[in-house]
């Protein structure tokens, strides 16, 4: 068993840690930092439940070795709200009932937050396509699309240049 040391930033906090070289970012967040909001649905890059942002881009934490995150900045679901003030995507998801069991929800939210900055068109079909890497077995898709659309509009209004 080989071990390695890395340091990166998680939700704005600098972390230096020593761990098994096999440790994925997902297991590192969950098992070492107790940041269990990021979920494991498949561990194979097939469900999107583990979606986090690495340097602002959405990434699958189960397919990312923690050791390869050295020097990077990671945002998880726990780092999204500003204190008690929810991110527009979180708020819109509650309003539109964009989840049922909630297990895919962290991944859906991280994906939606990241996609708002990606060059997608405005239609519902574009959102469906952009969000298709995040499975929801409860079938909240139509509500997720409605929530993402509302949040995107709000974000665009609040930060016209972003």
């Amino acid at each position, binding site marked *: *068993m080989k071990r390695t040391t890395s340091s990166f930033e998680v939700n704005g906090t600098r972390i230096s840690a020593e761990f098994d070289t096999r440790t994925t970012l997902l297991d590192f967040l969950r098992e070492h930092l107790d940041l*269990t909001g990021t*979920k494991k649905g*498949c561990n194979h890059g097939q469900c999107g439940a583990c979606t986090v942002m690495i340097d602002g881009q959405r990434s699958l934490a189960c397919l990312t070795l923690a050791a390869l995150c050295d020097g990077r900045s990671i945002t998880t679901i726990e780092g999204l709200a500003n204190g008690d003030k929810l991110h527009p995507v979180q708020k819109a998801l509650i*309003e539109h009932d964009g989840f*049922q069991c*909630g297990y895919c929800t962290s991944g859906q939210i991280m994906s939606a937050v990241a996609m708002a900055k990606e060059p997608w068109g405005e239609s519902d079909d574009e959102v469906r396509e952009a969000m298709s890497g995040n499975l929801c*077995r409860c079938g909240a898709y*139509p*509500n997720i699309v409605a929530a993402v659309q509302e949040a995107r509009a709000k974000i665009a209004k609040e930060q016209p240049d972003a």
Partner: protein
Amino acid sequence: MTEQTRVIGKPVSRIDGVLKTTGGAHYSGDRKSSDGALLHGVLVKSTVAAGYIAGFDTAEAKQMPGFVRFLSYEDGDLIYRIDAPNDDSFVVNEQRTPFIDNQVHFVGQHIGLALAETLEVAEAAAAAILVEYEEDSRHIALDDEDSDLDKPDASGTGEALQVHRGDFDEGLADADVSVSATYTTPVEHHNPIEPSATTAVWDGDRLTVYDATQGNVNDRNYLAAGTGLAKDQVRVLNPFIGGGFGCKGYAWPHSLIAAAAARATGRPVRLVLSRSDMYTSCGHRPQTRQSITLAAKSDGTFTALKHETLSHRSPIGDHMEPCGMPSMVLYDCPNLVVTHSNRVLNRPSPTPMRGPGEASGAFALESAVDELAEKLGIDPVELRKRNASQMDPRNSRPWSTFNHPECLDRGAERIGWSRRKSPGQWREGNELVGLGVATTYYPAYRSPAAARVTLFPDETAKVEISVQDIGTGLYTILAQMVAEKLGLEAADVAVEIGDTDLPEGPLAGGSMTTASVSGGVAAACDALQEKRAQASGDEAISAEAGSEESLGFGGDNDMGKSFLSFGAIFAEVRVDKDFGIVRIPRLVGVFDAGKILNPKTARSQMIGGMIFGVGMAMLEETFVDPESGRFINPSLGEYYVPVNADIHDIDVEFIDEPDYDFNPFGARGIGELGTVGTAPAIANAVYNATGIRVRDLPIRLDDLM
């Protein structure tokens, strides 16, 4: 209760919404582990379908730093022999005690558990353990005549499975038109996004288990039996469950294995199933082959119906998929034969999956009704209305509410049924367009439930029940119920569920939780109101009460009525003429499910149920290797479930007629109603678009080219 409600029936947003959108909802695999107290377990599963374990080679695993222990049947006395199915304190679909002996019954059976200080080491160790087998002959195929065939008398919900009513042959002879066809449905897997997970913690002779279960009380009783403890020495906690759809309904061996491992090592143990573990550890919807003969007079009146089902069970399981159910209740038909046979195969144990029997059975029956309508030249909506059972055909009791024809009419209106053309006649560009309909239904069940309600001096309240919210919105519904009864707002009611130390409620299955808790919550609130009248108001007051009522199982009750929800599903499909690609731009569902307590969460549940049906119609199939008995595609990359881009407009309407005979809040269950009729509605729409009748699910591109 009067029909005027203040909080019930309002689209209240989920009260657990903030927790679920901020990562604050803790599921069974989320217990803190950074302190190093936990051991991680990884299952070793059988790679042969039948035989005996001759030995384990654990040498390599044992050398791994951090490896702790390997458990198997060689430590069999760790687990007490469970007495399923005779111990009526719990229900399981798999009746064998895990690790009881060295026999192997199917590929994927749990034969060992590797325990280590970290997940990485546990995974590496489990992969390094070599197993030697003495193989036995195996039975894999549904047609395997050498394996046993059961003909069970009754389903898990007490429904008769071998039914003869009237004289089928006479009814067939009387008919002007008949159709006979065979329909098949494949193995399907629930695939909740949360894999099952168990964290077991011992404290002296008390056991606490965080378990991803749809039935915490059932799970507790199973764990008590398997650990030799009294029920009150075991506590199961499941405040959040990441979906279930049936696979977390009954108790399964992995929970007991984790509990035994924690006892053996004196350490808390966490066992999170991998996605591929999920395919063999907690059931699936079994494969079915259904033969249907349906006959009618030229005016459409049904005269004879035969529905024969062949499915399968494992050598250590007892699930029978009751596909004939819809044929027993949906239509008036004087001459009926329903049979069920179950082949015993060396394949993993099936279990109920959203609409068990109803969904697979409705695919066959509702396709046959469509075929008959075509042959008769009668509109399929009309044919259903003409034959809709006005009373429960099983016992001639009136339905508690009856809006089956109304659902069909409203749905037809919403989808624009009058646009429908003859098969293959509606073309738009390169697409063939079609509309299809199917009846959907689900029996209404109700189980005993107790509840404790507390009112605080600041006019906030708390309700406590040992039930679980698997995503249905139960947290919110409970808050609404208590708020309604006590004159508060939903936001003023704290809800504590997911803990077997609380008053006992039912398992989340059979779409019965809301209806079941209604009685207990109403009774507890009424008791509290009495105390409140005499209380000073500066102290908290509390009341606990329960309802022992059990309704709907076996279709029997002493109320002189039958309880069942009807609905209608309509689908519009567009099929690419050259490539056979099917798109579903619009689905409409109209449902009569009693009073809708929260239209926001109920709509979500119906949409989710219909999407489940889209998967069944178009995508889902677990392939079985006919030689080895192995599931070939146990992953979310190769077992396709609907993704966001597969889903377009889904329109939901409720009749919203309260059923106060069923429970004090007038609600019937809705969890499975959306799923049942969706696959046949889509298959019928595909027929209408293309003229091609697909009788084997899922519908594939090559069926349509």
